[in-house]
C-alpha cells in the first residue's frame, strides 16, 4: 500500500459519511407516532388506507376547489354520514380536534412540515 497517510483518512471520512444514519441514530429508533383517534366518529371521509397515504392530496384538492372555484360543497362518505365543508379547520378538525396530538405526531416523525399553517391560524392548544 502506498500513500496510506492520505488514503486511509479519506476512506475513514467516506465510511463515516456513508454510515451517517447508523451512528447518528446510535441504535435509537425514536418513538413511533400515535395519532389520537377521534372519539366522536368511526369513519373518515375516505377509507383509512387512503387517508394514511394520500390525505395531503385530498386536502390540496379541497384547497383548490374552495379557494379557486369557491365550491365549498359537502363531502359525502359511504358510511352514510355527511360531512359538511371541504375545510381543514371546519371539517377535518371537527373530529381530529388536536393538531398536536393528531397532525404533528406523524409529521414530526416523517420530518414533514406542511404549510397549512402559513395561512390558517394555528389552533391554540394547552399542553
Amino acid at each position, binding site marked *: 500500500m502506498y500513500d496510506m497517510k492520505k*488514503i486511509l483518512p479519506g476512506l475513514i471520512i467516506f*465510511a463515516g459519511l*456513508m454510515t451517517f444514519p447508523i451512528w*447518528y*441514530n446510535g441504535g435509537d429508533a425514536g418513538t413511533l407516532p400515535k395519532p389520537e383517534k377521534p372519539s366522536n366518529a368511526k369513519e373518515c371521509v375516505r377509507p383509512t388506507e387512503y387517508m394514511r397515504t394520500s390525505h395531503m*392530496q385530498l386536502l390540496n384538492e379541497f384547497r383548490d376547489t374552495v379557494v379557486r372555484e369557491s365550491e365549498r360543497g359537502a363531502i359525502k362518505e359511504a358510511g352514510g354520514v355527511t360531512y359538511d365543508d371541504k375545510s381543514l379547520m371546519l371539517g377535518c378538525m371537527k373530529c381530529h380536534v388536536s393538531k398536536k396530538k393528531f397532525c404533528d405526531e406523524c409529521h414530526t416523525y416523517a420530518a414533514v412540515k406542511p*404549510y397549512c399553517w402559513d395561512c390558517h391560524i394555528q389552533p391554540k392548544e394547552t399542553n
Partner: protein
Amino acid sequence: MKVLYPFIAVLALVALAFVGVKAAGLQYLFGVVIPYMAFAMFLGGFIYKVLHWAKSPVPFRIPTTCGQANSLKFIEQNKLDCPSTFWGVTGRMLLEVFLFRSLFRNSKAEVHDGPKLVYGSSKYLWLFGLIFHYTFLVIVIRHMRLFVGHVPDFLHAIEAGDALFQVGAPLLYQSDLIILLAVGFLFLRRLINANVRYISLPADYFPLFLIFAIAVTGILMRYFLRVDIINIKQLAVGLATFSPVLHGEIGSIFYIHIFLVCALMAYFPFSKLMHMGGVWMSPTRNMANNSRMVRHINPWNDPNIKPHSYADYEDEFREFMTDANIPVEKE
C-alpha cells in the same frame, strides 16, 4: 443492442422486484436482506477497490500539465494548472472534485466544407454533469430523513430548499424534475452524438437507465402511487438501527424502488461509477509537478543495483571504446 440490453436488464430488475413482492411475498428479502447485502457490498467493495488501487506505486510525477510550470522567477507559473506545491494540488483537486474543472475544458471538433477542421468549446456536458451530480447529492441527503429517528435541522433546511416553490401537496421537489432532465440529457448525448455513440458501451447505458428508473419509481411513489411513509420510515430506521421491522402494507412500488437502489449500490464498486473514489486518486491530477525540486525514488528498485553513472561507465569501458573509435570524454 448496446442500448437495448441494459434497458432490458433494468426492466428485468423492476419485474424481479415486482414479482418477488407481489406474487412470491418476499417482502422481508427485498426490504431487509437485500438492502443489507447491497450496502455491505457497496461499502466493502468501495474500500476494497480503493485499497486495491493503493497497492500500485506511482513513483514518478505524472500530472497533466495544463499551464506554465514552475520555472525562472520572471516566468509566471500557472499555480492551478501545473501545481508544484501541496496547496496548488489541493486547489486543483478541490476544483476538480467540486466543479469538474477538466470537463469545463471539454471541446468539440467539427469538419466543415473546405475541408476545414474547427475546434470549439462545448460546455453542455460540464453543465449537465454538474447539475446531475449535485442533484443526486441533494436527493441522497434528503432521503436521510427516513433513516434517522430525530431529524437534524440541516436535513430540514435541505428539504425546504428543494421544495422551495411549494407546488402541490406533497410538495414538489425541484430535484425530481432536474435529475430526470439531466439524466435525459446524458442519455441523449450518448445516443445522438455519433462520436460518443460509437464509444458508448452497455456499461455506460446501464447506470443511466438504472438511475433514471430509480428517479421515476421515486417520483411515482411520491406523487402518484402513494405509499405509507410511516411504515417505510419504520423500516428504514429499523435498518439503520439493526432492528428492522416490516410493519403494515407497503406498496410494491416501494420495493421496486429500493431494489433498484440496491442494484445500484451493489453494482457501484465494480463499475465506472467508482469514479467517485477514483477522482481522488487520479495521479494526473493529485500530483505536484515537482520533479525538479524533489527526488522521487522508485520503490521497487533493487537496492543491490547501484547507480552507474556515465563517468563510471566510461572508466569501465574506456579501452574498448577508444579501440572502436568511439569518442570518450576523458582521454
